[in-house]
């Protein structure tokens, strides 16, 4: 039987052949297949990359590699100054980005009047997110290094990277706030809460996981940035650890680039090993952010 017969003749005039059902099931299956393929493509590329780095530089990974300063001799060179520098820079970036980004988002979304001027600001923030990172480096060189005389320091680097990723964090935080149902605000106001109380007790806690997603994306991007840091004058060879925020520094991507640009094969192995460490550090930073997100979500149960 290829089609059902109904008592009402009007329904029978419409034909529903079984082939159409089969075809729709087929489409449904194909889409599932496509999404799985997409996922695996991404995963496989990442695995191949990690595998390649291990093959080239896995041998170099030892405690000494982490505890040695860079050296002219490849087998003695390590990444101590680089990973410490990266950690410091990321810490400064994270603190500044979260404080400034979240406040800016809250102001724009909750306090700012909706007029032509604020719309212009919004548009500009979106544009800033697409700016090439080297331009931020130039800005920082002029503003932080020369005008504010902060030098090529950790602080300058943190502020530069923070500027670079702020647009992403602001946009994500605004979206997270905007996605909350209006009824949440209404419920709070109806009990006689002020705008500040509503933000602190309800809106920010409920939006925090969305905000943290933006922060994770932002930090992952910042940790690999090289161009703006070279522009502000980060060093490639440093044989001491920074003691204050105003000390000069280097970071992993710069160390990596430095080794790659040398002709000797041994330094390339070092670069691959540093690449592995950089990847691992990125995962670690993300894990911390995800941990914070899970913690924050615990108190919010929709």
């Amino acid at each position, binding site marked *: 039987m290829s089609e059902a017969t109904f008592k009402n003749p009007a329904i029978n005039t419409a034909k529903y052949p079984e082939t159409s059902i089969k075809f729709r099931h087929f489409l449904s299956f194909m889409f599932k297949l496509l999404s799985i393929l997409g996922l695996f493509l991404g995963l496989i590329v990442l695995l191949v990359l990690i595998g390649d780095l291990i093959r080239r530089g896995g041998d170099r990974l030892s405690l000494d590699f982490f505890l040695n300063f860079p050296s002219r001799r490849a087998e003695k060179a390590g990444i101590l100054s680089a990973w410490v520098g990266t950690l410091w820079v990321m810490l400064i970036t994270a603190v500044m980005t979260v404080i400034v980004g979240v406040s800016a988002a809250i102001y724009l979304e909750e306090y700012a009047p909706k007029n032509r001027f604020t719309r212009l600001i919004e548009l500009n923030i979106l544009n800033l997110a697409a700016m090439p990172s080297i331009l931020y480096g130039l800005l920082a060189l002029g503003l932080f290094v020369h005008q504010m005389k902060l030098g090529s320091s950790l602080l300058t680097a943190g502020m530069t990277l923070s500027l670079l990723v702020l647009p992403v964090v602001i946009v994500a935080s605004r979206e997270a706030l905007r996605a909350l*149902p209006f009824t949440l605000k*209404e*419920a709070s106001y*109806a*009990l*006689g809460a*002020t705008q500040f109380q509503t933000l602190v007790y309800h809106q920010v806690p409920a939006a925090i996981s969305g905000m943290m997603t933006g922060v994770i994306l932002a930090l992952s991007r910042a940790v690999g940035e090289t161009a703006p840091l070279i522009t502000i004058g980060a060093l490639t060879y440093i044989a001491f650890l920074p003691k204050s925020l105003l000390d000069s520094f280097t970071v992993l991507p710069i160390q990596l680039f430095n080794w790659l640009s040398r002709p000797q094969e041994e330094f390339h192995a070092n670069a691959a090993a540093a690449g592995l460490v950089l990847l691992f550090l990125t995962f670690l930073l993300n894990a911390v952010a995800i941990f914070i997100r899970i913690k924050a979500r615990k108190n919010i149960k929709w």
Partner: protein
Amino acid sequence: MVAPQTPESLKISIQNLNFYFGTKQVLKNINLDMSEKKVTALMGPSGCGKTTLLRCLNLMHELTEDARADGVAILQPQDINLLADEVDPLWVRQRIGMVFQKPNPFPKSMYENVAYGLRLRGLKNKTELENRIEKALTQAGLWKEVSDRLQQPAFSLSGGQQQRLCIARALAVEPEVLLLDEPTSALDPISTAHIEEQLAEIKKHVTVIMVTHNLHQAARCSDDTVFMLNGEVIEKGRSQKLFTNPQDPRTENYITGRFG
């Protein structure tokens, strides 16, 4: 049979209230008196302005851009015009609570939901918090069902329980007036019956103003009823009288089901 007349005092008196969204007028020259510790039902078809009128009373309309209320709504015994510019919305909302059409508990525990209004007012004493929470949940008829799991998320409750939690949340701060905006329209008949039963208890302490488009509900649980149409008050009076002997033909048409 005539209902025994008890002396009633006025709680809210609305005079010449006009309300606009932008240039569109949604309430036209409303004049209404609401008695203390009674249930007043605002009844009428969708879009007649009853919800707008209700939201006006705790200034929720100030959250909406372009909304403008013109007129007087006097809260007794303080004798203060709620709609005057110099009146602080926080002052008003501390005295006039509101429950919304769709249950909107906070995404936190039941305890935190009811405690919130008290915390806002600076109450920190744990014993007193717990006492007030128990009292409010009892008034809302929810205490027996949830007393052993107050720390669980509010969203683990059924829709009807969530709405009663919202009523408890509003009652916990001991408001003078409770506004209910179609509190049962999203609920099943049994949950509705639960809430209606509770109303009789609640009105002993609080003046209740309730919006409903369900005329049976208005007839069942209100003392006074106001019938509205197209932003105007058509008829107001004792519910018993209004439902059995409406004066205006439009009221009669509505309650006999000719439209609406």
